């Protein structure tokens, strides 16, 4: 159940429509009566929501003409991760922010260290390193490793725009189970500059292990996320 008052829920809904472009600046919004009928709520509740949005400057009433979008609300500056979010980019999109990404490197390398254990049938693995931005600011670096024994033709896929999981699905090995670990660590020296963060500062450090439906490990990803853009949210339940 949503614990927010109805007028607050309506405020959130109208703001979301403006942020997502359903309403452009200058557009006329639905009348109080129309919203009241559409959502099955009292007209006074609708009026309260609209009044609040006017007071915040997002809407503007023009006498005799209606209520119009005046400005776009600031989007939230935190990205929520966890709780069923599959990939980093999906989380950012759901947060209503403007994400972009570049590929720093993509190459075939000999499996080393733990990768030999994770991908025992693949002496070589792909190493994909990407830098993500939010609203033009560096946000996270991801190092992804996936086995050459299951995947190929990486050069034909645009990893800056496409998700790793879309690529994996095209190759018949979509992750069915993802085990993730989160801890707080110092930013790695080699990434401090590119993430525009001081050395010694803390970051969220994620490790993802992805498995396909045959329980083969198909992905090992390390992700370094700047704290000012990340709030990790989750729910727990008692399991008897």
């Amino acid at each position, binding site marked *: *159940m949503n*614990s927010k008052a109805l007028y607050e829920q309506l405020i959130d809904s109208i703001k979301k429509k403006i942020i997502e472009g359903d309403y452009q600046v200058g557009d006329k919004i639905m009348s109080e009566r129309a919203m009241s009928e559409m959502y099955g709520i009292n007209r006074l509740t609708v009026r309260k929501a609209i009044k609040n949005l006017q007071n915040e400057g997002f809407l503007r009433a023009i006498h005799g003409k209606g209520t119009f979008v005046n400005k776009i609300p600031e989007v939230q500056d935190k990205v929520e991760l*966890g709780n*069923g979010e*599959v990939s980093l980019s999906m989380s950012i999109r759901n947060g209503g922010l403007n994400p972009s990404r570049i590929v720093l490197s993509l190459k075939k390398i000999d499996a080393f260290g733990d990768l030999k254990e994770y991908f025992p049938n693949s002496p070589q693995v792909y190493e994909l390193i990407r830098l993500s931005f939010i609203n033009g600011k560096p946000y996270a670096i991801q190092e992804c490793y996936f086995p050459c024994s299951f995947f190929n033709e990486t050069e034909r896929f645009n990893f800056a725009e496409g998700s790793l999981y879309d690529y994996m699905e095209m190759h018949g090995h*979509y*992750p*069915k*189970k*993802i*085990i*993730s*670990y*989160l*801890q*707080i*660590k110092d930013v790695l020296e080699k990434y401090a500059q590119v993430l525009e963060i001081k050395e010694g*500062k*803390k*970051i*969220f450090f994620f490790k993802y292990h992805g498995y396909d439906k045959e329980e083969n490990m198909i992905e090992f990803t390390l992700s370094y996320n700047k*704290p000012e853009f*990340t*709030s*990790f*949210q*989750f*729910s*727990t*339940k*008692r*399991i008897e």
Partner: protein
Amino acid sequence: MVYNGGKPVKKDVYILRNINKFASVTDAIISREFSYRYHVLENSILESNRFISKALDIPLASKVFCFEKVRVVEDEPRSIEKVYIDYKKVPGIEKLDLSKESFYSILSREYGIEINQSEEEILIVEANEKERQLLNLKIDSEVLLIKGITYINNYEPFECFEIVSVTDFYKFRSVLNLDE
């Protein structure tokens, strides 16, 4: 085991929280066989402000029990934990000794209260002066802030809490199964 000035010091003092399952932090500490104790900072009845009232879904200025403690594990302060609970649910709790065992064990035994689930958020923030002092941190140190609400039956809010922890004390694990 490593040694510091002849004194044995356990390495890697952390607990792994499975975020798919609600569990007591104290139980996790016990399962790793770490020594622990609490230092109680506050144990009082207050009136709720609007933030606590909203989190606990109670009227403004309701009586709430406020309990704050430092969790000392392996002789080092690891976290400061503060909870607010609607006092009607835990009458007389301020008279109990809460310094020696798991808070959730006491709630279960004394009040028959079992926490069913929680909603939590994790952030990294700069430590304030009080936190630096209590956790023996240097200036400019960062801490892990975990805040959330626990729920009892029928998704009824029970407690809102904030945990400020040294950054290496917690690790988190989750398992996500994706449907077809």
